[in-house]
């Protein structure tokens, strides 16, 4: 099978990308077919049913929707592999341009949610492993509750408390309109910091707070439980007894247990990052966050085939890249992988 320890990292990346192709093709096909099965005509959805038939016919020809399905499919696949995701039925812009407009917002939300969940997950897992007993029980309970929280409902509760009653934080959007920082990376927080635009930075962070805490807490359930379990399991190993016998303080022994379990932890965090993108769809809609998730939802309603297909491919690519990144980080972290030998 494909094992990182048998080859150079570069070769490994190329192979991983090549292996991602069939996955993408299958997903593309499925999405392509499902969209066509959804009842309704995208052109009618666009211009309304009362538009003159000749006009509708003209648009059908423009978009290629009048061709047989298999021709549409082949045209589309050819386009994708030449880097052309087509044009949106709605705004007639290249799909890639719409995606690039929305992508920074999703990245910003994902990164902050990820940070929140990592912070909570590590803090609670360490507390549980350090104190055990009651603390451990409480942490495990938290992990389960966090995991089963339904994002729209939980987000709504936070919006009510912190947005409506306490009025501390905005309940939707990325930034107070008019305060947008100059476009550099598209990430408001980064752009505002680079250009020294403090009001924009504060506004962007305030807008990020509720959505990233919502999503961060939900994801933190899995993190907490996973890191806690790994540490508790590792603490039973013989080398931990050596460290205890050798007089290392308890917290340093704990750090070593965490370090030894780092490879599975990183792998899991990478997988969660992919899950985070999925959770981001719900979070984005709950907080009217103008990212890829809201784009996807808007365009499904209009049966905007090219955009929906484009966003799905984009998600798949992200997951593929995250997986490769996880493997490369593990390569740096695990000496057994690095030395290319397994015992």
């Amino acid at each position, binding site marked *: 099978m494909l094992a990182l320890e048998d080859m150079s990292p570069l070769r490994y990346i190329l192979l991983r990308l090549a292996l991602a192709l069939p996955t993408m093709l299958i997903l593309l096909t499925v999405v392509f077919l499902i969209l066509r099965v959804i009842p309704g005509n995208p052109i009618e959805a666009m211009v309304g049913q009362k538009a003159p038939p000749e006009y509708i016919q003209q648009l059908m020809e423009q978009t290629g929707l009048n061709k047989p399905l298999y021709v549409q499919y082949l045209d589309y696949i050819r386009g994708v592999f030449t880097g052309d995701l087509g044009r949106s039925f709605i705004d007639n812009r290249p799909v890639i341009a719409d995606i690039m407009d929305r992508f920074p917002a999703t990245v910003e939300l994902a990164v902050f949610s990820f940070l929140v969940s990592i912070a909570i997950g590590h803090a609670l897992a360490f507390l549980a492993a350090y104190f055990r007993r009651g603390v451990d029980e409480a942490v495990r309970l938290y992990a389960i509750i966090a995991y089963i929280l339904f994002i729209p409902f939980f987000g709504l509760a936070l919006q009510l408390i912190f947005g409506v009653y306490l009025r501390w934080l905005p309940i939707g959007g990325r930034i107070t309109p008019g305060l947008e920082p100059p476009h550099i990376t598209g990430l408001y927080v980064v752009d505002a910091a680079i250009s020294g635009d403090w009001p924009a930075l504060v506004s962007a962070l305030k807008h990020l707070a509720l959505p990233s805490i919502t999503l961060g807490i939900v994801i933190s359930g899995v993190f907490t439980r996973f890191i806690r379990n790994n540490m508790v399991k590792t603490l039973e190993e*013989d*080398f931990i*007894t*050596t460290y205890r016998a*050798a007089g*290392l303080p308890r917290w340093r022994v704990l750090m070593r247990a965490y370090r030894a379990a*780092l490879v599975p932890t990183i792998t899991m965090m990478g997988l969660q990052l992919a899950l985070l993108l999925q959770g981001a769809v719900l979070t984005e809609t709950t907080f009217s966050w103008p990212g890829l998730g809201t784009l996807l939802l808007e365009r499904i309603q209009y049966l905007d085939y090219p955009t929906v297909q484009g966003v799905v491919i984009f998600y798949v690519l992200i997951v593929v890249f995250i997986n490769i990144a996880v493997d490369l980080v593990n390569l740096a972290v695990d*000496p057994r992988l690095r030395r290319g*030998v397994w015992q």
Partner: protein
Amino acid sequence: MPPVLVVEGLRLYYGMGKDVVKAVDGVSLELDRGEVLAVVGESGSGKSSLGYAIMRLLPENVVLYDGRILLHDGGAEFDIVSMDEEALRRDVRWKRISMVFQASMNAIDPVSTIGDFIYRIVREHRPDLDKRRGLAAAAEAIKSVGLPVSVLDMYPFELSGGMKQRVMIALALILRPLVVILDEPTSALDVITQANVISLLKSLRGDVSMILITHDLALASEIADRIAVMYAGKIVEIGPSDAVLTSPRHPYTGALLESTPTLRQDRALSSIPGRVPSLIRPPPGCRFHPRCGHAMDICRSEEPPMVDVGPGHRAACWLLRT
């Protein structure tokens, strides 16, 4: 000079479900400076638990840990059983007592190089050593157990079992402790490597006091100055190696010797009837009486006291009283 280690009435009980396992049940012994004391016994006799109890490495489900473990270093005296956890960690563990574990295979941090692993422990007790000097000390220790210095840059998965055992011995000695507890140091090794480790241990004799926990009487006879025989959580006989091996006074010691193969005599190998008693519900009276060919009425009801049977040689058996 007082003994370096005095153990008095040490008990370690731990819970297993609803039961209490009396793993160490009133053990007393003394260890002189530079002396090697072998603790021998069958599996389940509590000899490993004794080692852990002396290090105060207690299982999570411990229900009783008492008695005294006095460690003498010059004028200083430490009671390991009752001393403060932080002081134990700082002043006793590894600095004055270290241990070579039975499962040395997995006793080394899997994601550290040997050098980092050793330095991490050395630094805890010798904050004055920077990394360069700490690694130099590690190199010295590694050489002293007959390993190449290049081992310091290797990970445990790159070492053989024998090499890991040597690394653990080097680690146990690096801070020049007063006492080293060796828990079955050769049991997981092949015969050649065993021989190497044994000659290494022999060469260390005299510098440091050792408690050698083993089921291997041959190993004990080769290295130990004195031998303590443990049975069901208690020491039943203790004395100079020669005396214990040539004129055992406790029937259990005798039976143990007769069940050990030897190259010198041509005799049928015998086995001890019955099984090692449960440490949860040990037999009343003398714990060996159900398996003993000489058992009398008193053995079934009353525990025999330790009696002197020779110079420094003591055993606990009613036969010795009558």
